[in-house]
């Protein structure tokens, strides 16, 4: 053992508090330190994940109080997988934006990297924590970082997007607190495992209302259809890497939270089919909205929302296969959508309106970026032999095995829609004439490196998915085993 899960939160926090001081010593440190922290956490998470896959989950108590009295962190195969994924993406995003922000001056750069690091930390905290109120705190950390990052650019629209995000975020936290308090009033505990072990004693009405409030609150962050008004704006107006971080990290954490509530904490079977309903709604509405977009990042945002709908559908099957599919989809979505956001934001870097038409003919100026965008587009619509195919296949297999043929057909129809709008953009990049007043900007070396890493991963997973499926299988088995989770946590003694 080289460390414990608490370091995932403690180290970034310490670093966050240190960064203002370090910035006074040497300005470059505010850029470097978050990267160092993330690298360390990457090593840590890989080590821990290896350990966990072999010898079972690590439950860490904080302040020495055994669950359910203290807060505990659970690094299991499931949460560990997600944490590793998030930190990896965080690292990529950091690498991408390392020089991206060079031209903005010291103070904004400091804030940017600080908020970015805390965004990742918050998301990681959501996944790791074993306490529902602690999860609320981490959601707020993620939220506030998100508001700040969304409004990072000084244009007027970024503030608008940020305000929408904040408004819905505030309502979300109100609903979340209500839900938490209903549960607390019935059980007198905030520990997830303890709640899960006692939930059958709760009056079903309270249970259902609490669950509804939880899903609504977390659904706002997880971009479920009627609750996701903030998402396209925030994605589109935030800096490109932040959009990638939203799609790859923050949403994942929120979806994790919903899943944790439905799979582990509550024992309401209707919740699974509810997940399918809202997932399908999200998928269909978002993809149909995406096809009519004229701004690139907005299109990507809707596409991302749609994908998360699909993830929820896959979780909603409630089978281990479904969970496997959903996790695989989450992984692929994280990698591919980040790549699309990162490359896409260079394609429309210097344009004012970030319109799709402004990517016309970009391949001549940004060959590698264009290629990576095309690769990502092909991968995300699920064309073999790229990464997205395998996850789509596993989703469909899971759907067929759950005898949800209607869902299966709808997912496939929506895939065609998705295909159309991605191909339109790729066609524009490669075969259209460049606009008159478009001024392409060459990506910096590290941005290129970050994108190439993601692109290579798409190919690797596409050609040899076995590199990752073993881990995902273990992770999904881990999520499905509710009693093991309860026992693992509650068996910790003082």
């Amino acid at each position: 053992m080289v460390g414990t899960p608490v370091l995932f939160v403690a180290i970034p926090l310490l670093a966050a508090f240190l960064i203002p001081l370090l910035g006074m010593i040497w300005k470059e440190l505010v850029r470097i330190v978050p990267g160092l922290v993330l690298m360390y956490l990457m090593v840590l998470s890989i080590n821990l994940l290896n350990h966990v896959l072999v010898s079972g989950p690590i439950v860490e108590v904080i302040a020495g109080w055994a669950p359910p009295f203290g807060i505990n962190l659970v690094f299991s195969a499931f949460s560990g997988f997600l944490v590793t994924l998030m930190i990896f993406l965080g690292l990529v995003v950091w690498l991408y934006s390392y020089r991206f922000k060079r031209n903005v001056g010291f103070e904004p750069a400091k804030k940017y990297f600080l908020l970015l690091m805390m965004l990742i930390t918050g998301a990681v905290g959501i996944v790791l924590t074993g306490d529902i109120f602690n999860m609320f705190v981490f959601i707020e950390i993620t939220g506030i970082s998100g508001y700040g990052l969304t409004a990072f650019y000084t244009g007027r629209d970024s503030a608008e997007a940020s305000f929408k995000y904040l408004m819905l975020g505030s309502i979300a936290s109100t609903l979340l607190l209500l839900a938490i308090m209903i549960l607390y009033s019935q059980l007198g505990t905030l520990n997830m495992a303890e709640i899960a072990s006692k939930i059958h004693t709760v009056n079903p009405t309270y249970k259902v209302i609490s669950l509804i409030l939880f899903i609504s609150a977390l659904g706002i962050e997880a971009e479920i259809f009627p609750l996701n008004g903030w998402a396209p704006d925030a994605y589109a107006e935030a800096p490109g890497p932040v959009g990638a971080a939203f799609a790859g990290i923050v949403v994942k954490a929120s979806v994790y939270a919903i899943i944790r509530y439905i799979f582990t904490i509550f024992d309401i079977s209707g919740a699974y089919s509810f997940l399918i309903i809202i997932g399908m709604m999200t998928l269909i509405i978002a993809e149909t909205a995406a096809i009519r977009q004229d701004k690139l990042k907005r299109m990507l945002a809707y596409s991302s929302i749609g994908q998360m709908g699909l993830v929820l559908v896959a979780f909603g099957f409630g089978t281990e296969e479904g969970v496997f599919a959903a996790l695989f989809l989450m992984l692929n979505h994280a990698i591919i959508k980040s790549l699309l956001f990162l490359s896409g934001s260079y394609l429309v870097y210097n344009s004012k309106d970030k319109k799709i038409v402004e990517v016309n003919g970009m391949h001549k100026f940004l060959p590698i970026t264009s290629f990576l965008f095309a690769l990502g587009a092909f991968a995300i619509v699920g064309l073999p032999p790229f990464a997205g195919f395998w996850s789509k296949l596993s989703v469909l297999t899971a759907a067929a095995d759950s005898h949800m043929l209607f869902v299966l057909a709808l997912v496939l129809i929506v895939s065609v829609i998705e295909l159309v709008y991605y191909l339109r953009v790729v066609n524009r990049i490669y075969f259209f004439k460049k606009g008159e007043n478009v001024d392409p900007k060459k990506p910096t070396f590290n941005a290129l490196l970050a994108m190439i890493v993601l692109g290579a991963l798409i190919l690797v997973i596409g050609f040899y998915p076995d590199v990752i499926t073993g881990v995902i299988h273990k992770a999904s088995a881990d999520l499905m085993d509710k009693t093991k989770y309860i026992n693992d946590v509650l068996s910790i003694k003082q």
Partner: protein
Amino acid sequence: MKKVIVILLLAALGFYLGTTFFNIGFGDPHFANGVKDFYLKETVDNLHVSNTVTSIVVNFRGFDTLGEVTVLFLAVTALGSILYKRRHEVGTRSVLFSSSSVVTAGSKLLFPAVILLGVYVFVHGHLSPGGGFQGGVIIATGFLLMLLSYENYSVSHKWLSIVESLAGIVFAGVGLLGFINGGTFLQNFLPTGVLNNLFSGGVIPIIYIAVGFKVAAELTGVIYTVLHEKGVK
């Protein structure tokens, strides 16, 4: 029309929330063996802290508190990022009260008292109501008073930042020390002293003092940033 719909919707929402909470009941014990009994017992028996809320906030659920000060810290950062400075307007600041001599003199007199009160509140956080947050807020109010009364009163941004960072580092550092001492993160590693004594409760007062400084610095930073914003377009 929209108003009617909203009111109807809110009425429905209120109906469901109302029935839920009315049935939960007010003033009755809702659950049999929750964690609170353990907290109440441990606080006085082992931690030797009189204020259970403090022990919960700082020790049992100290992780939340760490997150919470981080939220404030991030709020300050985000605030600075949102209200970016435009180059030509540095240092102008609006003063809320018209600077009558009574107010300014009063503020000047009041300021040390307010600071003292704040310090007292967070130092005694583990004994009496109040603690790091409350003390920190009170100190921030003191600075607010000065900022509002004196046009050219200014707080060094640098020092605010240093205090804030140091306090944060102390908090996280104390947590890590507990970790390094063979225990867990935020675990108490100091003798807990005698109940109702100033020097009791192990690391709780230390953390709470750090929280106090941090909150004070952060809130002052918030006010300072907002105050320096001239909203005229």
